[in-house]
């Protein structure tokens, strides 16, 4: 009896905990809700316009079936072209996922009669036991005939779903299964050449840094993230030594990997903690490589506390708005134009499988209708440094400067690019290690 008495509170706590943890998703995602409901509103909008139409045809029967018709009627009447996206993180993360989401909204605005649907937060922390194939099936069940999956680890699941759904066209963004020859014919890969964006970020960091201690808040380790760290380092080294004429040994470039694209408590390192470790270690510029905005948030806090710390966020054009006073700029993706072309092709039946690693539009990297990668200067970048950065970008644009020119060595001293040669796309894509001079783990 005594045992039972002591156990009831424990049980209640357990059950309440289970309920709260289930609810926990809701408060964390409240900012997500508004766009989410917005999406469903737009999803319901055509249905709403159809309901009266249906009502005039057969008022008695259709009226009662209105809620059902909401999902089925569009197929028979207007037949909107439905395209979907599976996102690893929330659509309002101020980074990777928000940029992807807005790219799709760009397409929805430009293809009349099209409809965009999505499921976000597809990761083991937010949706345990839900696999990407399952989510893709849900999108297809809602009528999607074109699906974008937006994270590296969706590659295998995308291919499985593509084999099971040969009539649906897939884009695995940031993936390389087409290059590797593993993708079914209805899968394509799209990625922007963010290596240039990261070079600009590294350059801006080196130009503005006073201590020469630059740090990089890294996500997980794979060829993509190594390639981006290396590019940022090359940009920083060039602008530190060749533009500013400072000695190379006074520049330090450190990367710490958290283990995933964003914070998962108990699984990844806490990016807030890592950013603070950088700051306490004397670093005065933090480059972000993760999907979320911890780097700029913490840099801003430190600056308000009297230190001088800058940040360079990543992925999303408006990321500087979080804290303009410490933002040197942001290398960002602009997926809209590329997705518009891919989806238009698929709609017209002319989709061709390809591996597209697309360079910025060098005539104007910030043209929202042409350039997949851009760099938006931040308010904290001094006018002098902005001029230097523009000159650097101009050199990249006209091809007079190729930072992947040898001799370049990997961290362990093995040659990466031989003296006098330049690395081709495939070599850069599959960067096996960090470069010599970068402080951090390569995981070869």
């Amino acid at each position, binding site marked *: 009896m005594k*045992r039972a008495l002591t*156990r*009831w509170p*424990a*049980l*209640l706590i*357990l*059950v*309440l905990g*289970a*309920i709260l*943890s*289930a*609810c*926990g*998703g*809701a408060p964390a*995602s409240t900012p997500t*809700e508004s766009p*989410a*409901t917005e*999406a*469903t*509103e737009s*999803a319901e909008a055509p249905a709403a316009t159809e309901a009266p139409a249906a009502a005039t045809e057969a008022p008695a029967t259709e009226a009662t079936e209105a809620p059902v018709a909401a*999902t089925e009627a569009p197929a028979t009447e207007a037949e909107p072209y439905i395209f979907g996206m599976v996102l690893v993180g929330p659509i309002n993360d101020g980074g990777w996922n928000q940029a992807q989401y807005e790219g799709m909204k760009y397409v929805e605005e430009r293809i009349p009669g099209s409809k965009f*649907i999505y*499921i*976000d937060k597809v990761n*083991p*922390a937010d*949706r*345990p*036991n*839900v*696999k990407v*194939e*399952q*989510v893709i*099936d*849900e*999108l297809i*069940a*809602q009528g999607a005939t074109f699906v974008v999956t937006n994270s*590296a*680890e969706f590659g*295998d699941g995308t291919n499985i779903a593509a084999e099971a759904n040969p009539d649906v066209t897939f884009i695995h963004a940031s993936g390389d299964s087409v290059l590797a020859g593993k993708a079914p014919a209805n899968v394509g890969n799209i990625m922007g050449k963010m290596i240039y964006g990261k070079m600009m970020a590294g350059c801006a960091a080196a130009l503005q840094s006073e201590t020469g201690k630059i740090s990089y808040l890294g996500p*997980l*380790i*794979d*060829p993509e993230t190594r390639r981006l760290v290396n590019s940022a380092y090359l940009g920083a080294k060039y602008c530190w030594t060749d533009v500013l004429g400072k000695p190379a040994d006074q520049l330090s470039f450190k990367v710490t*990997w958290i*283990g*995933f694209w964003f914070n*998962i408590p*108990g*699984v*990844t390192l806490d990016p807030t903690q890592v950013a603070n470790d950088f700051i306490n270690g004397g670093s005065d510029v933090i480059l972000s490589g993760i999907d979320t905005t911890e780097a700029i948030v913490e840099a801003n806090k430190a600056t308000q506390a009297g230190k001088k710390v800058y940040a360079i966020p990543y992925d999303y054009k408006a990321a500087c708005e979080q804290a303009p006073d410490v933002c040197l700029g942001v290398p960002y993706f602009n997926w809209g134009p590329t997705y518009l072309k891919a989806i238009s092709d698929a709609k017209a039946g002319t989709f061709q499988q390809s591996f597209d690693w697309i360079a910025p539009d060098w005539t104007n990297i910030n043209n929202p209708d042409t350039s997949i990668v851009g760099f938006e200067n931040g308010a904290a970048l001094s006018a002098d440094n902005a001029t230097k950065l523009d000159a650097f970008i101009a050199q990249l644009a006209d091809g007079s400067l190729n930072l992947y020119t040898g001799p370049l060595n990997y961290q362990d001293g093995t040659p990466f690019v031989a003296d006098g040669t330049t690395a081709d796309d495939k070599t850069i894509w599959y960067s096996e290690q960090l470069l010599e001079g970068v402080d951090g*783990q390569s*995981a070869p």
Partner: protein
Amino acid sequence: MTTSNQAAPAQKPPKAAIRSPLLFGALALVGALIFTSIVLLSSGVPPLEAYRLIFLGAFSTPVRISDMIMLAAPLMLCSAGLTLTFAAGLYNLGVEGQMILGAVAAMIPLRLFPDLPPPLLWALAFACGAAGGAAWATLAAWLRVGLRVNEIFAGLGLNFLASGIALYLVLGPWRRVGQASSSGTEPLPNALWLPTLDKLRLAPIAPIVALIALAIIWAAVTRTRWGLELRAVGLNPQAAGRMGVPAARRLAESLAACGALAGLAGAIQIIGVFHQLIPSISSGIGLLALLVVLLVRANPAWVLPVAAAFAVFTVGSVQLPLALGTDSSIAGVLQGALVLFALLARGLSARK
């Protein structure tokens, strides 16, 4: 006046009827639905449409039915195991960790001998999974019986340790070549995946294993002397001891058996569901099984319908974000509310 007079005596005789588990189950269900409806209404979601998706969504397509079965299988295994520990009066919160260790152990033969014939490897994976889960549970049993550490705390501690081990393996020794990502290890070669029905993710071996295990547990608890002794220990360990039942031994056995079943569930997650080790390989199924067992108590016969219903809710709710723009965690609210109201109803029924 007359009506109240009738009502007053009416309260006494039907007490037996009121206390019947079915009625209380129905009351709990109604309470849970009301509670969940309030949550849904407060977030602006039409409850009827949400319930239609949650209750029936899992049956709408063959693909969803198969996903539901693949979730129900490990859930049934864990729940069946937990009926044993529940019968013995233990709250085995370590079931998550036992599932994780089962999954880790199931990976070992698959990594060491990938060239063996797949059927043999599957058998090995199941055997290792069961052994791994049982070993982890034995640790909890030793803490409970040997060192008198409450199994709730021992289980929770061991859960953290098990997640740590899985995470270490995923980011360290078992990571993908050239990568270090907590998204998981290299996927198993296709030949080692449990065979599935055409175009579905349904691997029939998983539910078969779960049903066989459930039948064995049902027979052991209700039809054997061992099960009787287990329940005696659960009711009163001291008295059972005086009657000649080796109480400590039965406690340890129930934990180890539960661990073995959770380990089987972990093995299913590896070879039947994810085909790789991920840090959250247990996916909260162990915790869900704890909720199932709070409803069914030490009665394995009810595990099948309740676990299946929970799997239906969970899979049905996957489409909520798309169809209604609400979060799928509403299924968790419904499940938790069901258990909470069942406990309340049971508490009320126990009051004289």
